[in-house]
């Protein structure tokens, strides 16, 4: 096991300074992000929490380079982020697998897009093995359950050995049992690969189980309301009194009181 273990791909350092962004609906700007500043250390797991529709997903799109930001600084390892790059990979809430490709070919997508697939086919097999789906390599996406599809999407991201994994509510549509299993898998993969992870979630408990640090956002336009460090080793327990207490604090910050 140890012999097979690669040198972990070092995580990306993310530097966000005074970032503001607006949508334009019928000509009137609708601010979604306002003066957001955030530094993420290499290999850190940061969760973004906030009311739904507050602009967290927009922040992820900017970090991924899918859209240019209106104002502010956005840097990965000191270099400005100007477009998408396979070192920063997104896993979306919907698996968005291509239905016309078999599972294996879906996972191979990134390597094929970068033109290195023919030389690096074993990487696809390895990524499928990481999410325990080797047997489903020849299946069509429509034949998979929701959890399996999301694990394929995870493998499709990991095969590129990203330095920053951007997780946009990846478990949001899964049933609670699958969720718990996949939270464990996410932690194990992150610990093994050493990438930096940025997770948007609506689930306070999920953020507490996974993240080193939780950023709580306000209503739209999103501003950072609080930063909470979660000082616990992995694997964490759901009923850890420390986590339960943090959960209460965070729900208070979100205006939901002692729920």
């Amino acid at each position, binding site marked *: 096991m140890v012999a097979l273990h690669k040198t972990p791909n070092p995580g990306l350092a993310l530097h966000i300074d005074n970032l503001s962004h607006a949508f334009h609906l019928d000509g009137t700007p609708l601010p979604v992000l306002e003066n957001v500043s955030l530094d993420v250390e290499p290999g850190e797991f940061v969760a973004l929490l906030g009311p739904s529709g507050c602009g967290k997903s927009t922040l992820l799109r900017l970090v*991924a380079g899918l859209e240019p930001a209106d104002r502010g600084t956005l840097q990965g390892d000191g270099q400005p982020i100007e477009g*998408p*790059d396979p070192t920063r990979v997104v896993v979306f809430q919907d698996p*968005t697998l291509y239905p016309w490709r078999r599972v294996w070919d879906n996972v191979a997508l990134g390597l094929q*897009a970068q033109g290195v697939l023919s030389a690096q086919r074993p990487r696809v097999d390895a990524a499928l093995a990481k999410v325990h789906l080797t047997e489903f390599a020849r299946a069509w996406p429509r034949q998979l359950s929701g959890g399996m599809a999301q694990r394929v999407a995870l493998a499709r991201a990991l095969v590129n050995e990203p330095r920053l994994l951007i997780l946009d509510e990846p478990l949001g549509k899964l049933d609670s049992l699958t969720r718990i299993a996949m939270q464990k898998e996410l932690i194990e993969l992150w610990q093994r690969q050493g990438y930096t992870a940025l997770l948007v979630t609506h689930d306070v408990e999920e953020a507490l189980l996974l993240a080193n640090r939780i950023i709580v956002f306000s209503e739209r336009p999103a501003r950072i309301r609080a930063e909470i460090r979660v000082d616990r080793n992995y694997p964490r327990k759901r009923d850890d009194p420390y986590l339960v207490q943090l959960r209460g604090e965070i729900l208070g910050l979100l205006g939901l009181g002692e729920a």
Partner: protein
Amino acid sequence: MSSADLTQTQAAAPAEPIRVGWRPALAVLAWLAAGLVTRFYPDFTRHWPLTDGVANGEVALAVLIGMLALVAPRSERLAQRLRYLAPWLIALGLAFTLWELLTAKLGILPMPFFAPPQTLIAVYFNDWPRLLDSLWHSALLLGSGVILGAIFGFIAGVSIGWSSAIGYWLHPVLRILGPVPSTALLPLCFFLFPSSWSASVFLIALATWFPVTVLTWSGVASVDKAYYDVARTLGAKPGFLIFRVAIPAALPHVFVGLFMGLGASFSTLVVAEMMGVKSGIGWYLQWAQGWAAYANMYAALLVMALACSGLISALFKVRDRLLAWQKGAVKW
């Protein structure tokens, strides 16, 4: 546990004969009736050639169905096939009997316009070189037009769907020229083009081009934007987005367009052959009508129906292969 169940049912199977039902017996009777009526019922006006031949064929079919029904209990597949086909076999046997009675035997339908079955068979016997030649010329003309139209339609559809600059120029052309029935342009094209053949290729291509373009375009335009986001974050360049994302995602629409285009091309083909091109099935129909050779017309119509249906079936076969990833697509 389950394997034990399986061996048990397998062991039990031979004891129980596979049921074929009583319908094949009715089919035998229906075809026997057709044969006997054709052979022994006196003709109304004149004796048609090949009457005995058709009668023999019908009786032979009855015997064949009977033999298959006797063998069927030994083969599950054959029995299933026979059970499935039996209602159609009965109906066709009755239809042939009725057709024979209404035309040759009782003369209820006016004679030169409604031909009895034996005259159609006679046409295939006597006139097959000309029919085959017509079919070949039609295929050549249709193939040239449809392939050109499909290629240009596909390219135009992808371009309009992808690039707004190309869309700016092509879209108005599509909107003005597309809905015009291509047969309406026939007189114009016959003097604009050097030959009636090239004019017809152009019109068939045009008839195919319009639906293929519109549906390819709508297919490309309706691709989920998230598919592009995924590919872009994984390092895809624009070429990859077009050829590996947009086109495969649009392919189901493209096939609907090809289906519609093929249908439109058939009618353009026939009109073009009737009006200008001096060969092909459409020309044959026109020619048969000019000579009041109605049996030839029916025979040619039947050939055409089978050929067109075969082409559509082939298209669906190709689609089923290429779109195996789709579930529950329309079956032809």
